[in-house]
């Protein structure tokens, strides 16, 4: 079989032979993974990058989204992603409520940096424990019609388990970007990030804008949660793994830029899939987070940062 594989030779390492199919698959797998990472990070990009709210509990809301998608799927059999989209207004409301508390307790008093952080840390644990108490610590997973379907184009596979979340995620990210650039609300959000005074002159209450934007951020977390449980089994504490990842994507791509977040997600996805395919998978997290450290040290504004 290996005899008829076409081979790609990198110019830098002429002795290295990389089967073209492996390379193509690594790129596709990286992009699909990146699509999921984008969904995980887009909310953080809004809250952290634009609103300056360091919500490290974001992954906890993702896991909450996973479990809600799981219950509805388990009881009623609806597709988890459809469920999450239908329930996203609820997450939106949850987000606005949490921002209210956050604003009243911290931002208004100018204490957001440290205590706000601790507040979200607390929320992270409370959510986690609540999920443990309700569902136990076992891994949960949903099966959908496309879970075990793989579409093949030549030698490249497209597992639907990743393709479906990828497509919905792309639609969501593009939707968020359009919302932010094409609507009055969006421009107000961008103004919050840059110039609160101008915003007041526009006659808009920045707190209200931030509240809505934070709601949007949590709504994306709910949807990302449904992706997660389609892709892999979920247990309550798994969210912690994504804290670093979500912030890494945002910082790598450039704070406050949705396209930057998308790019950062693809970079990390491809870095992970390349490390897994060609070197040792064990080093994948070190490569991703090493990239982040290098970005922080040498180009802290990120790839597409303002």
């Amino acid at each position, binding site marked *: *079989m*290996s005899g008829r594989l076409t081979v790609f030779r990198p110019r830098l390492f002429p002795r290295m032979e990389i*089967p073209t199919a*492996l390379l193509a*698959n*690594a790129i596709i*797998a*990286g992009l*699909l*993974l990146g699509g*999921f990472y984008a969904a995980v990070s887009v909310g953080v990009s809004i809250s952290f990058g634009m609103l300056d709210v360091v919500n490290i509990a974001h992954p906890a809301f993702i896991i909450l989204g996973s479990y809600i998608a799981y219950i509805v799927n388990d009881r009623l059999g609806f597709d988890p992603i459809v469920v999450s989209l239908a329930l996203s207004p609820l997450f939106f409301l949850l987000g606005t409520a949490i921002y209210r508390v956050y604003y009243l307790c911290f931002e208004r008093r100018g204490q957001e940096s440290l205590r706000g952080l601790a507040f979200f840390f607390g929320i992270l644990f409370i959510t986690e424990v609540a999920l*443990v108490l309700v569902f*136990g*610590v*076992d*891994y949960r*997973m949903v*099966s959908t019609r496309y879970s*075990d379907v*793989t579409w093949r184009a030549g030698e490249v*596979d497209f*597992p639907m*388990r*990743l393709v479906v979340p990828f497509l919905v995620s792309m639609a969501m990210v593009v939707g968020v970007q359009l919302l932010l650039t094409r609507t009055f609300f969006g421009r107000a959000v961008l103004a919050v990030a840059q110039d609160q005074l101008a915003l007041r002159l526009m006659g808009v209450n920045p707190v209200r804008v931030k509240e809505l934007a934070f709601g949007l951020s949590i709504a994306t977390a709910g949807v990302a949660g449904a992706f997660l449980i389609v*892709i*892999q*089994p979920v*247990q309550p*504490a*798994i969210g912690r*793994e994504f804290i670093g990842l979500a912030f890494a994507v945002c910082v790598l791509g450039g704070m406050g830029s949705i396209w930057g977040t998308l790019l950062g997600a693809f970079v990390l996805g491809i870095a*992970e*899939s*390349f490390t*897994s*395919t*060609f070197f*040792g*998978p*064990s080093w*994948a*997290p070190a490569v991703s987070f090493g990239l982040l450290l290098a970005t922080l040290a040498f180009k802290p504004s990120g790839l597409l940062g303002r």
Partner: protein
Amino acid sequence: MPGRSFPPVLGRALGALAIAFGLTCAALAQQPLKIGFGMSLTGPLAGNGKAALIAMEIWRDDVNAKGGILGRNVEFVYYDDQTSPATVPGIYTKLLDVDKVDLVVSGYGTNVIAPAMPIMMQRNLTFMTLFGLNVNSKFKYDRYFQIMPAGPDPAIGWSQGFFEVAMSLNPKPRTVAIVGADAEYPAMALEGARAHIKRLGLKVVYDKTYPPNTVDYSPIVRAIQATNPEIVFVASYPPDSAGIVRAANEVGLKTRIFGGGLVGPQFAALKTQLGPLLNGVVNYEFYAPDLGKKFPFLDQFLAKYQARAAKEGVDPLGFYLPPYAYAMMQVLEQAIKATGGLDQAKLAEHIHESEFDTFVGKVRFAANGEWASSRVMMTQYSGISGNDVEQFKKPGHITVLYPSEYKTGSVKAPYHENRK
């Protein structure tokens, strides 16, 4: 008047005291036998910890129903170790010095056994442990005993069956890929696999590890496929077992034999999650329903266990850990009865010398406290359809390939033709 009623009150009080004293004396003779341990009731291994606890409680109730041990009722004192080793020294010193338990046994897994070892060794206690991986190789403590049936050298015993089965294929395979998670058990299993590979003169074409929280396993499986191995040995924990089996199906992994050390398919959760994706996978198990007659007492235990497990939301099958948790207590029970007391030296000596008849069969311990011989069964899944849990309670889906005394069928290869 108070003054006048004083003597009778005093008399009554004295009488009551005398009765109470008598009762205390009686109670002293009948004081319960307290057994202490830490168990993972929260944290990543809580599922297993809870299942083990249920099995041990069933044992306690069985023993107490028969009048206890040496006429003493058995009582448990246990604390949640949160699957965190850092909690273990505190728990065991509390059990021994504050709760004054008569005996201690371990919680589930290497992580929480090892930190208790120094305490046991300083006090010369006999220590029965549950599913530790070669913990005693460094401590070399002669009162340590372990109930998982991996044999005197667990690393070797673990994959012995897998490689025996692989080498029984015709023609003999020559290339092998091994992969596992970056964690304690997979690292040990891979080490054992490497030893077998070296012994058998196989050629390693892939030998890598991955972080257990990987989201997408398909790049790993593709990288393995690119090396065209005839054997793929995997050592993984439940979430990554699921990820790898899934990826093997998506990528369409072509190899002759696949599996070996996947932790997870032993439990109902993963059996039902993966369902038909498990077909063709060769993997270790400690029990299969096809073996019913070879473990005559296990059925009674499983019936009791499954009834309680359903209520408490833990592994509803109970083929893996619970019978061994029960057996661990049986060994202790038999040793106490045989030595007629709690003398730790005598207990250890007896356990070393004797053979124990337990629900998981006859058990004998090697000098290092592990089982004298390995009984890790290598099995192959087949004919699984849908995600229903009931099918796994019935014979016919798990064929035992190894060891020969339990063999119920032969391996079907190559893997990719038995998938689905």
